[in-house]
């Protein structure tokens, strides 16, 4: 039994093979056993692409560790390949020397062909560098279940638990968490409880007797902060963060949304929690999604709209309206691979400029971004807080990677750890109230229908200072444009100062933002260990930026901006601070690997 600091495993098979479930079980069990984890579910683009094809491969990568884990890992050390297509899609990314577990039952000629192999995959692929474990997973599963009163198809469907059992043996995982889960999930169908449990145990037992597994491993508990933990993915965290904000603010929560990958799960999650006073409105399109939300905001709810790139493109006009109304609203963009329909199930950070500027006229908006799955809760809360306290729409950027990826989350103590939210209700002095009278932060107050004496009309035409009546006065227009810009900039006083990881000065400042934190953090840490004078500035507050950002830049010789696009944050920073920063950019629909970042930053260090 060998002790490992961390290990990366990838479960891969056909869309129908249940790999997402298998990966999730492995992750959750490991988390419960005290490991730090990070996961990367990698869906095929189509619903059930033809069985057996590479396009139909569904993967789930999990990284577990005895120390801090921040990414799902660059290269899997173990690949479970349930069919030839899974082998074909993944082998090149497996670490040399790693283990490959194959379900030989699926390695038929027909399947090899579907996967695009022109012959026997085991001959065609060079497997010499790997430890290959061949198992007839399907037949062994059916065999293990032969006494059960189930049809063969249903029996074969348990093969993922059999495979899971094998990995549980290999990495000394406890079976109980998964058995508990099976009981809960299939409680009403005892036959399925028995089938899956039996398959899991059979897989484990088979592995134990298998000579091919020369070694088993143990990944000790991670030394992480004390507390109560759960695993969470970004979309769930986002949904919960909004519920919490509504609770703290004492408001109902309203979501107006139209389904789109990879944002739909926020809608799904919120729909489950109507007992929190949550209303979800599945609108006829994205425009109606945001417009119902603006209506709800006018009527006094904490209002949201959620979407991804193409849907956000449709919301631009209404976002501008919310901005000139000066009503609180959160717009979530779970970014995916663009342009156009692009790569819907893949990740990217290429909607930054769209969110900053994708509206007519001078239309400034607060923009924030979550850094990792477990940060989505906080940033959804922060987005809500800023929207309510500054009476403005706020864009929250996440991405497909952190939205679907899961990691352990130390549960916050809600009574202590959350900022207060100061809702801008007017005082009772209706007679002297003006809709666009502002406080020192240029924030107006929020009077809602039902409040006697505060009847007022909002519109998208330019407004007169204070009264908000329609005004075509040239100077007033200029004043209002400046005020709206200033209002957004003043939110800088209401956000944390920018932290940097590492020294305050040095040779290279790495700038990253949003969902890439795990990778940039690890890469910079590695370089720092090697003695390089590198620090990391990871931005979560994008507009306005924290007040100290400009000063931080001054103390570094070079700046490099790493992002999953062709240089959008770089364009903003260079334009604003004249940095002449270089970029490290990737647009492959995939998250950064730590190794590629290390290399790129080293190169920039010279």
């Amino acid at each position, binding site marked *: 039994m060998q002790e490992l600091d961390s290990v990366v495993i990838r479960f891969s098979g056909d869309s129908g093979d249940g790999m997402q479930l298998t990966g999730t079980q492995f992750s959750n069990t490991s988390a419960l056993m005290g490991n730090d984890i990070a996961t990367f579910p990698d869906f095929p683009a189509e619903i059930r692409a033809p069985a057996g094809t590479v396009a139909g491969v569904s993967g789930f990568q999990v990284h577990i560790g005895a120390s801090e884990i921040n990414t799902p890992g660059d290269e899997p050390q173990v690949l479970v390949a349930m069919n030839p297509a899974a082998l074909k899609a993944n082998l090149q990314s497996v670490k040399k020397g790693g283990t490959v577990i194959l379900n030989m039952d699926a390695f038929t000629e027909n399947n090899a062909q579907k996967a695009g192999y022109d012959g026997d995959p085991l001959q065609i692929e060079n497997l010499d560098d790997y430890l290959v474990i061949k198992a007839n997973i399907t037949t062994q599963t059916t065999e293990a279940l032969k006494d059960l009163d189930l049809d063969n198809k249903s029996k074969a469907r348990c093969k993922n638990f059999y495979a899971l059992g094998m990995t549980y043996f290999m990495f000394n995982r406890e079976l109980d968490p998964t058995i508990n889960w099976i009981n809960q999930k299939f409680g009403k169908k005892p036959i399925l409880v028995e089938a899956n449990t039996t398959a899991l145990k059979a897989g484990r037992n088979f592995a134990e007797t298998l000579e091919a597994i020369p070694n088993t491993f143990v990944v000790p508990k991670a030394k992480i902060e004390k507390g109560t933990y*759960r*695993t969470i993915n970004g979309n769930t965290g986002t949904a919960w963060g909004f519920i*919490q904000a509504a609770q703290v603010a004492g408001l109902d929560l309203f979501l107006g949304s139209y389904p789109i990958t990879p944002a739909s799960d926020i809608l799904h999650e919120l729909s489950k929690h*109507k007992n929190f006073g949550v209303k979800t409105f599945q609108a*006829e399109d994205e425009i109606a999604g945001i417009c119902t939300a*603006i209506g709800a905001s006018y009527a006094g709810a904490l209002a949201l709209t959620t979407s991804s790139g193409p849907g956000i493109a449709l919301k631009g006009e209404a976002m501008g*309206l919310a901005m000139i109304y000066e009503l609180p609203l959160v717009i979530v963009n779970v970014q995916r691979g663009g342009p156009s329909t692009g790569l819907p199930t893949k990740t990217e950070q290429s909607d930054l400029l769209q969110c900053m500027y994708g509206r007519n006229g001078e239309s400034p908006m607060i923009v924030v971004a979550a850094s990792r799955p477990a940060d989505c809760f906080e940033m959804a809360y922060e987005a809500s807080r800023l929207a309510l306290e500054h009476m403005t729409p706020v864009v929250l950027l996440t991405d497909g990677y952190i939205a679907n990826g899961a990691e352990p989350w130390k549960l916050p103590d809600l009574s202590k750890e959350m900022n207060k939210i100061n809702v801008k209700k007017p005082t009772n002095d209706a007679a002297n109230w003006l809709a666009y009278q502002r406080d020192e932060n240029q924030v107006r107050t929020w009077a809602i229908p*039902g409040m006697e004496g505060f*009847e007022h*009309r909002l519109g998208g035409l330019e407004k007169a200072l204070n009264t908000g009546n329609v005004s075509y006065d040239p100077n007033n227009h200029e004043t209002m444009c400046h005020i709206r810009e200033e209002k957004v900039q003043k939110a800088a006083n209401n956000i944390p100062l920018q932290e940097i990881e590492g020294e305050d000065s040095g040779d290279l400042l790495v700038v990253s933002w949003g969902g890439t934190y795990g990778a940039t953090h690890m890469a910079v840490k590695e370089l720092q260990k090697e003695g390089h004078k590198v620090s990391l500035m990871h931005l979560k507050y994008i507009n306005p930026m924290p007040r100290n950002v400009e000063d931080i830049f001054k103390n570094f010789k070079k700046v490099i901006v790493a992002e999953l696009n062709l240089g959008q944050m770089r364009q903003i920073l260079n334009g604003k601070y004249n940095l002449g920063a270089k970029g490290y950019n990737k647009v492959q629909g995939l998250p950064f690997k730590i190794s590629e970042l290390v290399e790129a930053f080293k190169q920039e260090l010279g």
Partner: protein
Amino acid sequence: MTENPTYKKKDFVSDQEVRWCPGCGDYAILSAVQLAMTKIGKKKEDIVFVSGIGCSSRFPYYMNTYGLHTIHGRAPAFASGIKSTNPNLSVWIITGDGDGLSIGGNHLIHVLRRNIDCNIILFNNEIYGLTKGQYSPTSKQGLVTKSTPYGSLDRAFTPAKLAIGAGATFFARTMDTDPKHMQETALAAEQHKGTSLIEAYQNCVIFNDAVHDLYTNRKTRDDHCVFIEHGQPLIFGKDKNKGIKLTGSKLEVVTIGENGVTEADLLVHDQTDERLAFMLAGMKGPEFPVAVGVLYKVDDVHYDEQICAQVEEVKAKKGAGDMTKLLHSGDTWEI
């Protein structure tokens, strides 16, 4: 419920100067609606007017209630959000034939489908007024406008047919030249639970003058409109001697006293009959009178009520939400 104050029309007049062309039909509608507001039994602060963009959509600025002047075509969506958040409000959507049927057609049919309890007044002047005179989806084919110097090619929507086809539960027709009827129609709309769509024939003196003249001019109105009422036979004409008869799926204009036709032969309006409403919706001049009044009214579930009921149901079932519990639900572990 606390007693509602008694309102005068001027209580609903805002401090903003009304800005439409002199002679525009919008003035009469505004006035009728302000009067109607004094009678609907709602407090001023519980009324919201929501509009899109267009001449007609300036309406909310002139109402001393809550209001939103939104973006082009989307008013039904804003209204849906408002009403779903606070079903106690009386929500009125003001839209035009361009705003509501061109860019906003989808939101219109979807609010009708969801049957959200609000009232829509569609100002149909068969033209884009605010952008200075392009044809609209209700313009008659062949209309010469700024954008169709050689005549428009599109066939026109009949709003009533579209609405009924989309599943409307209330449709009424009225006109700017009959403020009393306009007022009554607004009241009927407010009383209806669900989406009430009112098509108001409105005259744009500048860009499409007299387009509804046959129906709205006091001289010709009685001969070209049949004012319908639930349970009453369809009789019209200056001399109240013309009527509508239904044979199979065919409508026919008949004269009472001619060819042995008596009142008993006439079609009796049943506002709850969707198929009948669809037939009446399609009647138009000069052969037929247009049907004015409530063509269709039927009760059905309305979304805004349901969305609130569902929240209460789930609360009753699962108990009010407890965030700490939610965070700790499922698998957790201690370090």
